[in-house]
């Protein structure tokens, strides 16, 4: 049993048990409240650059299976848990969590009072953190942490380098990949979309040349300010195609329409965030994973109206353009992991294309 340290920007140091790889990187420490779905969370590219801490204490009991990845190459910078399980039991499990993390270069630390850190983050907001060997120079690390700048090239790192098609016979859809979850592709696929996944810096011209019915701007890490070219692209596409934004994609769409983004204290990271659907006047649940949100005051004059709000803090979770064919949601409608109440967003997107899109080729 190897020991390991978790060092926080505020100078606090936690001693725990090492698991996974020892590829230590400074990241933004956030807490995730999901009680299931650690495999999906680890492999969600939106967590690029972040060290994810699970508030639920027993992690790894179902092992890792071949089906539940949300990306090929997980990009979280670290995984903090109370307890990880070395003897998984689930009919699909084919390897342990720690073996997987070792393989993918993700460091982990267990036996941590995750609740204490959660409460700290709740009060003080997210913090920079890093894991280290037990004999590391802690003072030096803290100094490093304070000076460190968090990576701002997340999308550049995780977006596809080249376009690739996922052919089908339905609506022609271009996905701008900012670090998409497999779940988004899966849901579009399920609805028959003839999909082309393209890099974040694809121009509007290139996209329009494909004569598509709709564009999906995917989830991903970071903020729209780090990918101004994507914002530009969307601005140029707005009048021509149906647009669905998810996660970072939602923020990009909002930005393209003229709205602003702001940082939240510690964000929403959970499997089942209660969200009021204003159009249905009903509360529904969806997984959320965002540290930034659309600024309320910046909406005026953008033509955007709020369709969804988080029940507990009124944060904007969904937008619809009053005249253009644009919808976008901050939450993860694809339910991988998390609640599946919001799957209708995809149906709505298809419907919008059916109404306003081109005739099938």
């Amino acid at each position: 049993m190897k020991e390991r340290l978790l060092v926080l920007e505020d100078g606090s140091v936690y001693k725990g048990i090492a698991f996974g790889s020892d590829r230590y990187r400074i990241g933004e420490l956030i807490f995730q409240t999901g009680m299931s779905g650690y495999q999906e969370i680890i492999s969600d590219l939106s967590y690029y650059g972040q060290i994810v801490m699970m508030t639920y204490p027993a992690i790894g009991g179902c092992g890792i299976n071949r089906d539940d990845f949300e990306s090929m190459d997980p990009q979280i910078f670290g995984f903090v848990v109370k307890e990880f399980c070395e003897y998984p039991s689930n009919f699909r499990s084919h390897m342990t969590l720690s073996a997987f993390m070792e393989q993918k270069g993700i460091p982990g630390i267990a036996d941590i009072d995750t609740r204490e850190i959660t409460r700290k983050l709740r009060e003080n907001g997210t913090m920079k953190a890093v894991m280290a060997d037990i004999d590391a120079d802690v003072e030096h690390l803290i100094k490093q942490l304070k000076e460190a700048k968090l990576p701002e090239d997340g999308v550049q790192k995780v977006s596809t380098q080249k376009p690739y098609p996922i052919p089908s016979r339905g609506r022609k859809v271009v996905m701008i990949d900012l670090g998409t979850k497999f779940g988004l592709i899966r849901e579009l696929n399920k609805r028959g979309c003839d999909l082309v996944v393209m890099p974040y810096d694809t121009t509007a011209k290139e996209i329009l040349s494909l004569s598509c019915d709709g564009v999906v701007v995917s989830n991903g890490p970071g903020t729209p300010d780090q990918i101004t070219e994507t914002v530009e692209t969307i601005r140029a596409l707005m009048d021509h195609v149906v647009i669905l934004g998810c996660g970072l994609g939602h923020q990009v769409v909002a930005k393209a329409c003229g709205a602003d983004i702001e940082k939240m204290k510690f964000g929403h990271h959970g499997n089942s965030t209660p969200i009021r659907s204003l159009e249905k006047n009903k509360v529904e649940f969806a997984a959320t994973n965002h540290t930034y949100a659309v600024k309320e005051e910046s909406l005026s004059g953008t033509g955007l109206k709020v369709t969804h709000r988080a029940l507990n803090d009124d944060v904007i979770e969904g937008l619809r353009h009053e005249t253009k064919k644009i919808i976008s949601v901050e939450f993860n409608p694809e339910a991988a992991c998390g609640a599946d109440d919001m799957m209708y967003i995809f149906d709505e997107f298809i419907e919008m294309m059916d109404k306003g899109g081109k005739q099938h080729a």
Partner: protein
Amino acid sequence: MPKRTDIQKIMVIGSGPIVIGQAAEFDYAGTQACTSLREEGYEVILINSNPATIMTDSVIADRVYIEPLTLEFASRIIYKERPDAILGSLGGQTGLNLVVELANSGILDEYHVEVLGTALDAIEKAEDRDKFRELMYEINEPVPESVIVHTIEEAIAFAQSNGYPLVVRPAFTLGGTGGGFANNEDELRMICDNGLKISPVHQCLIEQSIAGYKEIEYEVMRDNSDNAIVVCNMENVDPVGIHTGDSIVVAPTQTLTDRECGIMRASALKIIRALKICGGCNIQLALDPQSFHYYVIEVNPRVSRSSALASKATGYPIAKLAAKVAVGLTLDEIINPVTKTSYACAEPTIDYVVAKLPRFPFDKFPKADRSLGTQMKATGEVMSIGRTFDEAILKAIRSLEMKIDHLEKADIEALSDEALWAKLEKQDDERLYVICALLRRNADPNRIHDITQMDLYFLQRFNNIVAFEKECKAHPKDVTHLIKAKKMGFSDAYLSRVWNMQEQELFDLRKKHNILPVYKMVDTCAGEYVSNTPYLYSTYEQENESVRSDRKKIIVLGSGPIRIGQGVEFDYATVHCVKTLHECGYEAIVINNNPETVSTDYSISDKLYFEPLTLEDVMHVIEWEQPLGVIVQFGGQTAINLADGLVKRGVQILGTSLEDIDRAEDRHAFEAMLKQLEIPQPLGETAFEIEEALQIAKRIGYPVLVRPSYVLGGRAMEIVHNDDDLCIYMATAVQEISHDAPILVDKYIVGKEVEIDAICDGENVLIPGIMEHIERAGVHSGDSISVYPAPTISKKIKETIIEYTKRIGKGFHFKGLFNIQFIVDKDEQVYVLEVNPRSSRTVPFLSKITNVPMSYVATRCVLGETLEDQGYKEIIHPETKRTFVKAPVFSFAKLRSVDTTLGPEMKSTGEALGQDVTLEKALYKALLASGVKVPDRGNVLMTIADEDKEEALDIAKRFYNCGYGIYATSGTAKYLKTHGIEVHDAIKINENADKNVLHLIRMGRVNLVINTMSQNKSVSKDGFLIRRTAAENNISCFTSLDTAKAMIRVVESLSFTTISMNELEG
């Protein structure tokens, strides 16, 4: 949506007496519901027959009716109160059934009473198997192949086309009563026959068995805007096949990926929406461990035992919110009462692991069939919270109070490998210890899995614990190991045992190295939102969230799991003590571990520690909180038993001191004290050896009452009539129970039993009332019918009793509650049988009927006030004009092989109250409320021991004169016939295998059985079968002639007797 304004008065139905399958959880639910409705400004009318509950306190509703939960009485209350609406979905199966019955009778329509919560058609769709399956087909949810049958033949036909094994589930029964697995035709016939009889609609579901699937439960809620949430999901460690009430349950699910959780969640929400339930609902699912395939097993369209567990496991108060939702409020407009910073429309996320273990009554019923199946057998449960599964399960084990401090039981460790494997096959209540014993011997978890079908995840975790035991043993007193052991949940008791040291030494070692627990909060949101709920559990981590205030604090110990002999009554007293402390300006801190109860509702106390009630766990809280002292007298024997250890560690016990508690509990000190106070008690001595016991018996004369010293609820107490039986008793009981404690041999005095509860302020005494038992001494007081005011004892006796009580209260320096059992012989001599220096089973009953808030007054005495300060100047409270009867309620139908005959060992699980202007009327109601049917004509079967025949003759005559048919077995028949009573012969069991006396009972030919047991115990096999058959066929069986006399008295008052002119005397 705002709450409804078109209704003002709501009638709430409680769940009645506590039986296996329906326990204190409904007191918790009902209390929350009533409080919640009144908060919203509604007028609440409550009906419940269970006096031992908080919910039947007159302050909980605007008007409380403690009346039988029958159509007859519920209708009367509707006539009188004219409620606008009725809410039955918080009163368990009893509540739902009564709503259905009322609706069917037409009275709800006639009086325009609307059904709230779960609509009638939803109840039907969920409970009627046919309609349920139809609905499931309609919404495309899978259910196992099954058929509804009304005859055994239909069941056989289904089996022929679908094969075995099959499950039999009778419709509309509590806790799966009468159900079971059939592996062949014989078994199917037997179970189905019984199930059809027990089902009120004579209907059974025969279903493909899916035993071995994972059993997953979802607690969901919905409001009338169709917002629906999952409050909690839970996984049974035991797979499908063992009733969830008897299963080890963990929350949240431990072996499901998000995919599986998603599938189950979607199914559960679809079902609650399809049923259009406004409130809480429990959905049980079976999941194939090898695929995503699942079945919906059962839907309970109401709050349930599981919802109480889910509420305590997450902090989310389901019942409270269910009541608000029932009157039209929606979840997205109700503030989450836990966080107060978020809305109730949220799915709780937790950051700990919860374990629930059932508490079984087999310590009291060693001869019962202990194997587990679809019939629930547990009387109660404990819950524990830990940051890991290991910690939670080990805390739960020591919460059970089975004298076990670890996953290890000495008698099971002593078994051979073969015996262990054989026992494992049986899947009984001790399987957890068997599994660990096997793992300790390096058994392959896969082999255990093949037998038990428990998920390997859990078996591996047990294996982990066992493996670490070995490491601990190899490193005695090593600090690193100590830290890890404490994190894993090991108790000091266990560690000090294997490290060969005193528990105190270990505790000192821990203190030296600062290895102490911290407390974490239960907040429904895993710390995401600020929350100030004073609901805490211990764990070994870094940050302590328990904020110690500078107020004056008092800790109140609860009574742990519900078991026979220690029921919800003690929770009642605990809650009142807590409320009183709060009112008197103290910070009241509760420690308890029973998820079903009101005392573990975090809103009752200033602070709730959900912890095992062991010296170690209690001391941790005390060390942290530094209270003025601890109150032990309300938490039953559980709390009393901790007093000694607490005092040794320097803790102040408030109220009656430890010396005085001991004086009442220690045989010799007690005798000496009574002698000094000049109060007689039955002759008796203590014996360690058989010879000694025989000598004593010879000296004082048979019959003698024998029991081990220091036991609870009359455990292993027997009346012995001769040397042979005494030898047998000494040989068996001594071994089994008290390794070193002696056996008490007392003269058994035939007489009336009288009981008092009293309060003493150290000097003066207040007796709210004197209760008389219908059954003569020899039947445990908890199993006797108790009457207030005492109907047959003279003024002189009452005066003696008052005098003795006064002397005892003052003599023992009691401060707070105490209870005395008296016996009055035929010469009006009064003896003291026992004195309990604590709250008792009858405190809620007596508090309610005399209007003396006993726990309240007692708590103030504990705090130093005198009775006079509180305005109680008379020693005895004036008697009421009304008569009140408390009748015991048994769960015999659910406990196979348990002898139902009443004796000194307590067997009842609950109680009901009947009250009216005459004793007969009150008795009628009490019997009815306790589940005894009281027809004004019918047939009675009598099988009477020789020594009782003379006394039984009068009873037979009276039944006969009321028009009852009398059936009797040969000896009894002959006797009755020679005395001029017409008797139908009942054929003895060995004379005819088919058409014998048992057949009469099974066919429902008799309405009542009166059976007394011969003093010579060896002969009574037939009697046992008769009693069991009656129990399993839901036919009342009286084993005491006194109960039978009470019954005939009621029957007579209900009917007219016809006597010919020729029979007239004089």
